[in-house]
């Protein structure tokens, strides 16, 4: 007679392997070296944190009209407060800045609408990608519907940084996808064009491209024909970033097993169908960290527009540091700039990790 097989019951884990005490023991005190490193880290923190808190919070001055109002030995945050509007909007006329605020609120509301179930996501995407830029441009530039015209040379501050960053990201991504696909294409001409473009752009510093865009191109254009410097700079940033993006995405395309391409082909899907429906969703998901890396790099690279005489967020802070009333506030200015850049980039990073988790389908290979 056969013996019946009964699986043994599962038991709970030992008590000392779970809970806070176990965590401290495993992560902080697991070996003599780790005990030493833990103590050393606490010592470094002891040296750094109290002086920074004292300077930045305890002894800081929050209000005042000039550097003279600030207490010595503490941060002069009054400088940031006094110049805040300029840091946000650059030289944009103060009585018109409501237009930038309105456009910002509109964008936040439209993106927030993705969370509302009743909204059709496809139409919302179209609205954000096609309709919103038109509305935003009308608001920013003015000149119609009784809005006062504002020259793009007056645009600046965090507004300009966000504008360059967002448009650069939104435009360089699809371009990067096309370049990556082109580079892997079987068509010799499409392939060569993409390879030459990518390799040329990647071999040149962004500063050179910006300089070309703002100074050289007008020299070559026929007399009287000229287009906006901001637009030229935007195109330069977009092309630069697209070349990097293309290589990141190509890495993702190469990581997709050959079997996925074959399965899509064998079903009779066309090239574009199999790319859009099968290959790209997987490839892009794989390289989200690399894509976000490029986005963050692009966002920070926008600071280089100071080279062509535009005052983005960092540029306008540097400019304000030279104000006779506020001499000696360089550290506060850079600290503020660093904090804002950090907050935005860290936000992008966390958001990308949330997307990665959302797209996880339990498939690690094949």
């Amino acid at each position, binding site marked *: 007679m056969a013996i019946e097989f009964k699986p043994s019951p599962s038991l709970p884990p030992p008590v000392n392997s779970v809970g806070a005490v176990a965590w401290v023991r495993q992560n902080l005190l697991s070996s003599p070296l780790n005990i030493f490193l833990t103590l050393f880290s606490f010592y470094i923190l002891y040296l750094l944190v109290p002086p920074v808190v004292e300077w930045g919070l305890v002894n800081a001055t929050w209000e005042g009209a000039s550097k003279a109002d600030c207490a010595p030995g503490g941060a002069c945050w009054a400088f940031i407060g006094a110049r805040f509007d300029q840091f946000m909007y650059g030289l944009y006329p103060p009585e018109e800045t409501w237009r930038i605020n309105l456009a910002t609120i509109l964008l936040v509301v439209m993106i927030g609408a993705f969370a509302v179930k009743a909204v059709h996501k496809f139409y919302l995407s179209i609205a954000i990608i096609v309709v919103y830029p038109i509305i935003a441009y009308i608001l920013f530039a003015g000149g119609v519907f009784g809005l006062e015209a504002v020259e793009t040379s007056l645009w600046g501050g965090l507004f300009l940084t966000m504008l360059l960053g967002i448009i650069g990201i939104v435009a360089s991504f699809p371009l990067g996808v096309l370049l990556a696909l082109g580079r892997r294409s079987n068509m010799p001409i499409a392939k060569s064009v993409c390879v030459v473009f990518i390799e040329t752009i990647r071999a040149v510093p962004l500063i050179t491209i910006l300089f070309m865009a703002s100074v050289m191109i007008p020299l070559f254009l026929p007399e009287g024909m000229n287009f906006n410097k901001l637009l030229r700079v935007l195109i330069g940033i977009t092309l630069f970033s697209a070349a990097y993006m293309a290589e990141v995405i190509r890495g993702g395309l190469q990581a997709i*097993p050959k*079997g*996925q391409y*074959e*399965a*899509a*082909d*064998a*079903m*009779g*899907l*066309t090239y574009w*169908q199999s790319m859009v*429906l*099968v290959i790209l*969703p*997987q490839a892009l*998901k794989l390289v989200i960290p690399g894509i976000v890396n490029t986005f963050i790099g692009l966002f920070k690279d926008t600071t280089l527009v100071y080279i062509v005489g535009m005052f983005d967020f960092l540029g306008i802070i540097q400019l304000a540091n030279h104000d006779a009333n506020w001499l000696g506030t360089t550290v506060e200015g850079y600290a503020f700039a660093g904090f804002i850049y950090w907050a935005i980039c860290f936000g992008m990073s966390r958001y990308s990790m949330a997307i990665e988790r959302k*797209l996880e*389908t*339990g*498939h*690690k290979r*094949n």
Partner: protein
Amino acid sequence: MTDRNMALAQLEPGEDAIIEFNDVNKWYGDFHVLKNINFSIKKGERIVVCGPSGSGKSTMTRCINRLEEHQKGSIIVDGIEMNDNLKNIEAIRKDVGMVFQHFNLFPHLTILENLTLAPIWVRKMPKKEAEEMAMHYLERVKIANQAMKFPGQLSGGQQQRVAIARGLCMKPRIMLFDEPTSALDPEMIKEVLDVMVQLADEGMTMVCVTHEMGFAKTVADRVVFMDAGEIVEANEPSEFFDNPQHDRTQLFLSQILNH
């Protein structure tokens, strides 16, 4: 054409053939992987292709839907010659289902979406109709309760059954199987073979590369044995297993049957 291939070609007259290989040759670089393949398959026929690894059996099968290109000779599938004409290739691929050794399900789509993708985008079927049909085929492979899961959450045998159902959703006239059970645990091979036997019983034209000789014996109309890029022998299973003509076939059979 060698005498042997001549004999094979004569074995089946080409008139009601659904797949025809005429003097097909293929090279990978300098490597001559298919040598003068002459072979035709009738509508409704079940063909099992076997042979040692590297013998060209997968390559030959994959030439049928042009996942591989041949360089000489002609392959005619369902009256259409396979050449560089993309429209022809896409037309044939609609009617030829394929099941791969490694399943090749799309990991970012649910099981149901895997099945409805091609009907919706290639056959332009309304989504609701495609889903109903997909559920019908999932029931047939006894896996309907997993429709909303992702491929990564299923066992190998379940994934391969989904892959078969995915092929069937295009209502193909021919099904190609490229070593469908080679990547499976022994316990899961049977559940996949059962589905394939059921399909064979319904009269589907099948070309199946496999080492499952039990399957070949019970299901195949003809067994094709390949070695070094050539068809060595093609015969009905009873003749093939009990009375192999070539010593190469005899050696192969003795190695896989008596281990």
